[in-house]
């Protein structure tokens, strides 16, 4: 165990200190995007991974958070960060409204219902003029003060995102060991079985969805801070939801570190394929990106976490 602790300490120092040493702005930007993606995938992981409720509509929470931030700026002139709590409250309301009816559905039917819900919201939103309708909302064109959290360098965003990610990991780790975590895993194993053992299925799923929705909305709010623009497609688009699922599944859904590993692979991959092939306009970005996802789902359906487990078992056998 001591060796493992040392590894974590070294990794932690690396994660915290590298932007102070390396000054490539674009690499710093990619790192901030990576942490942001890890936050939304980890948030999805709570209900989608641990609970096995594969939501493909998490963009509804992400979008709510992003819109909360920029609507607060556009409609009230607040700094966007002050609107993030509004976005989180909206996301929690959506979670209850969508969760209660859809949790009666299981498996693919639940996934389909979440897709329908997010599409419905996206179309509704295109007609709400205080929320920018189909044109979208923009953040402060130039920072009015520090409170607008608008920086030229990606490094402040990186640390801000890192702090949120750390909080989310602590919450997830706590949940893993708590009754909620055991209930969720029981539900993933089989809802009927869990119910027969006395697990309050609907309540557990709803609590998990609300925690998940809150953090996804927070990720959306952070996205809005950094990008400074949101429209129905970039907030509630289907690809936003799908990306969370892919990142979590790639790293290992239902594990603490899985979404982080997934983000650490997928985001640099996405950015470097776009940097290398995007300008050619041939869609090579998606071909390379897609091929890697296919390879992983073919050879490692349980994600990278499964590989790590396999390897450590092998190593232990060799040691024995």
């Amino acid at each position, binding site marked *: 165990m001591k060796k493992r602790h040392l590894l974590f300490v070294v990794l932690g120092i690396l994660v915290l200190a590298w932007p102070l040493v390396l000054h490539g702005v674009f690499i710093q930007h990619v790192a901030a995007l990576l942490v942001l993606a890890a936050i939304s995938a980890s948030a999805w992981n709570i209900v989608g991974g641990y609970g096995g409720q594969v939501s493909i509509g998490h963009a509804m929470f992400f979008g709510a958070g992003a819109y909360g931030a920029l609507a607060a700026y556009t409609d009230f002139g607040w700094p966007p960060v002050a609107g993030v709590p509004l976005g989180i409250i909206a996301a929690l309301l959506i979670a209850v409204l969508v969760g209660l009816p859809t949790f009666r559905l299981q498996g693919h039917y639940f996934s389909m219902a979440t897709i329908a819900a997010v599409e419905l919201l996206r179309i509704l939103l295109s007609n709400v003029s205080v929320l920018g309708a189909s044109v979208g909302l923009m953040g402060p064109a130039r920072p009015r003060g520090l409170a607008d959290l608008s920086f030229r360098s990606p490094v402040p965003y990186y640390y801000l995102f890192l702090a949120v990610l750390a909080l989310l990991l602590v919450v997830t780790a706590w949940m893993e060991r708590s009754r909620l975590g055991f209930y969720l895993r029981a539900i993933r194993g089989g809802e009927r079985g869990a119910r027969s053992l006395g697990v309050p299925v609907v309540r557990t799923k709803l609590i998990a969805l609300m925690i998940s929705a809150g953090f996804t909305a927070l990720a959306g709010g952070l996205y809005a801070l950094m990008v400074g623009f949101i429209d129905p497609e970039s907030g509630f688009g289907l690809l936003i939801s799908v990306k969370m699922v892919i990142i979590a599944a790639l790293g290992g859904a239902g594990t603490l570190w899985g979404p982080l590993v997934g983000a650490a692979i997928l985001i640099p991959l996405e950015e470097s394929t776009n*940097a290398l092939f995007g300008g050619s306009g041939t869609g090579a970005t998606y071909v390379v990106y897609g091929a890697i996802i296919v390879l992983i789902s073919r050879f490692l359906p349980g994600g990278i976490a499964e590989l790590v487990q396999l390897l450590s078992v092998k190593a232990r056998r060799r040691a024995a």
Partner: protein
Amino acid sequence: MPVTRRTVLALPVLAAPAILGAREAFAAPSAVKIGAVYPLTGPMASAGDSSRAGIELLIDLINTPHPELAPIPLMAEAGLPRLGGAKVEIVYTDGQNSPAVAQSDALRLITQDHVVALNGAYQSGNTLTASAVAERYGIPFVNGESVAANLTERGYKWFFRTTPIGPDIAALYLDFLASVGKTGVKVAKVAVVHDTSEYGVSVANTIKQVAASRQTPIAMDVSYTVSTSDVSAQVLKLKQAAPDAVIFISYTSDAILYMKTMQAQGYKPPILIGDDSGFSDPSFIKAVGNLSQGVLDRSAFDGSKPGSNAAKIDALYRKKTGRALDDTTGRSMTGMLVLCDAIDRAGSTEPEKIRAALSATNLTPAQLFMGYKGVKFDAKGQNVLASALMVQLDGTDYRSVWPAAQAAAKLVLPFKGWS
């Protein structure tokens, strides 16, 4: 290193910083590098591809001598003459359909490719985020095609836009009517017919506002819901009020329905103007072209006048792509042309000098291949001379009829409709 699953999976992670950093190493010394962000994949890809093809053609024309295109800046000589004939090199990036990707692209172009200026990015949302990065880094950004009004309301110092936007289009219609009025045609009573979509309402409101500010208010406002199945009540209302001119702001299916209903009721307004969208659609001409002879429409690009810059550029574009040059592509190309011209006049690749040259831009219609009255930026970076041409349907083609200097055919009034 043995090829195992572990090493294969580790590759992208290990290689990414190298790939992300590598492009810095290959900076060509003499070429002037400009970054272009366009949607090359995703739902907007076909439009982005056309813009890219147009820009490729334009850069090719700038980098090689084309004396036959002489009135257009930079065409006669090879490269940028005031930079010692330096060639222009475009670094294309794919903004996809995502403002976040466009932001990444702009950051990468500025910090890794060290471009001297940026151009793009088609969708207004992508233009917004990409130009915000340029503003923070103090790099000039020229946009040729995004129409969201707020882009030039941000108080940016480094953002310039060449395309006409809502108020320019309203001014075009009113100028046209005023000019026709001077020839003795009655134009006192103008009606606006529009659907209740955001497009219909915003264009109609802009026309009404601009008209009111000129003391020539719009006399009549007729609205209907999008994709309606019956407009006989609206046509009857028009027939009774008998306006001198009617401006339709309609999508294709509604535009077709209006033409059919007007024929059924035997009503022809003396001047009928359609606002681009529905009336420019080839399927409109196919369905009701024979009922719509003499319909007026607007277009910023018209290649129908033989010997004009537009016709020459259109021919070259057709040769390259097999398609006719469309309005949006022409607008993107003009944005890039204005940027290259400013870099040449700056005689330098220093951002501040390029910005100053952009601010001082003053191009005339003869130097352009679009129906603009020229290019000249106001303090907000909007082209105050942005405009379009009035085109008129004759047979199955629209031909430019106004302003007279750029006209390919003679304006025919009143509206002929069907025979």
